[in-house]
């Protein structure tokens, strides 16, 4: 493990997510001249995410961040090693139960276009067979939480929303059944810089208030520095650095420096 001892929020607590020596490999396309018939997308990664922590996985495109995220809610299963969620291996969890226990937000939100905003937000509670009144109350509460007026937005369809509004709905949907863990895959990546900044600030306040365990994937170092309680940098499927945001820019690893170099450039070019 290449992480040094970390400032943990609650050192005694068991990790909410514990990634232990995980490798995920895929078969290479035939015909490619390769030494090995496999390619490691994630290579012997170990990391622990503690309750209430916002861990940001930072890395370039193709560095394995999204793959690592998908290994946590068992959208993928490790080729070797194991991922423990609340001290149970994901392979032992019932995948449906596990996923309803973990909120998930992706870029472009992935809202269902044939559902209203209220139906999108109330999806997991509905799957969990909550009483309709309870779902309706929860949807109102969540829309208010993410800064959308329930009376105005409940009956709209996703196509009648702006990108920022869609992303707010995406966050509300992920929080619907009050999951203790939240996985976020570049949720603000497709937004214009102004909206992105707004959502990042609001989300950072929200995350602190709700006390969720969050794993957040991004390629934007500013976003990482703003949101993270800890930053883990991935390069070619491996963890190359792990540090609190205050210390991160001072690390001397070349990939860290490549990222911190971006901080000098004024307004970050759109992703």
């Amino acid at each position, binding site marked *: 493990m290449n992480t040094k001892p970390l400032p943990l929020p609650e050192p005694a607590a068991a990790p909410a997510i514990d990634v232990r020596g995980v490798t995920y490999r895929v078969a290479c396309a035939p015909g490619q001249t390769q030494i090995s018939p496999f390619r490691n997308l994630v290579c012997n990664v170990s990391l622990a995410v503690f309750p209430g922590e916002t861990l940001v996985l930072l890395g370039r495109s193709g560095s394995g961040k999204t793959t690592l995220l998908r290994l946590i*809610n068992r*959208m993928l299963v490790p080729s070797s090693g194991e991922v423990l969620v609340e001290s149970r291996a994901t392979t032992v969890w019932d995948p449906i139960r596990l*996923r309803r226990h973990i909120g*998930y937000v*992706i870029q472009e*939100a*992935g809202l*269902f276009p044939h559902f209203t905003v209220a139906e999108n937000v109330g999806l997991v509670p509905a799957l969990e067979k909550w009483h309709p009144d309870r779902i309706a109350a929860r949807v109102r509460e969540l829309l208010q939480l993410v800064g959308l007026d329930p009376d105005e937005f409940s009956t709209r369809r996703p196509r009648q929303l702006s990108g920022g509004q869609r992303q707010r709905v995406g966050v509300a*949907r992920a929080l619907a059944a009050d999951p203790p863990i939240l996985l976020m895959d570049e949720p603000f990546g497709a937004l214009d810089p102004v909206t992105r900044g707004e959502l990042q600030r609001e989300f950072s306040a929200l995350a602190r208030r709700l006390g969720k365990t969050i794993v957040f994937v991004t390629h934007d170092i500013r976003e990482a520095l703003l949101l993270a309680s800890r930053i883990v940098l991935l390069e070619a499927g491996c963890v190359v650095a792990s540090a609190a945001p205050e210390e991160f820019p001072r690390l001397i690893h070349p990939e860290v420096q490549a990222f911190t170099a971006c901080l000098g450039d004024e307004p970050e070019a759109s992703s």
Partner: protein
Amino acid sequence: MSPWSFFLGHRTEILSATLDHLTLVIIAMAIAILIGVPLGMFIIHRPTLRTIALGAASIFQTIPSLALFGFLIPIPFIGGIGKRTAIAALVLYALLPILRNTVVGLSGIDPAILEAAEAMGMTPGQILFRVRFPLALAVILAGIRTATVITIGVATIAAAIGAGGLGTFIFRGVALVSDSLILAGAVPAAMLAIFADFLLSLLERRLRVV
């Protein structure tokens, strides 16, 4: 006799043939939908079966319709002279557009939506019926529309094996070299096709949610 006065003179006969024709088409389409749509759902995640089913449906489509009716006559249960054989043949014809559009519609969903559905903890059944199917409905309906128009046309040939319908006038007209008779079958058939196409296109537009 002009086609128009012929048409007026035989309007009850033409009307009842039109109704026969429509019955044939509706029964055949109902069966084809009941086979094609569930089959399409069943094969989307099974590549081998998908190739086989679509291949078989394409082959039926390439058999000339008159020959297909002929082939079916000696087959027990579905064969013989009359409506039953005609319906079986029409179902085989209608299957390809329905099956193909069902497969295309169900597999053409935005991957981000499917990813979200899976990550929310929807079961494969819930993803199929609550996400894929509603979003594919407009495409499936487009296939049903194509199939309906084809079936209305092919059903005229069913008269050759004694299934009745508007084809009766056409075959009689060809035998007697009477334009009026041919038109008495062809015009209502064409109108039926245009009308069905229009009606289904309205429905399709209403179902297009995105």
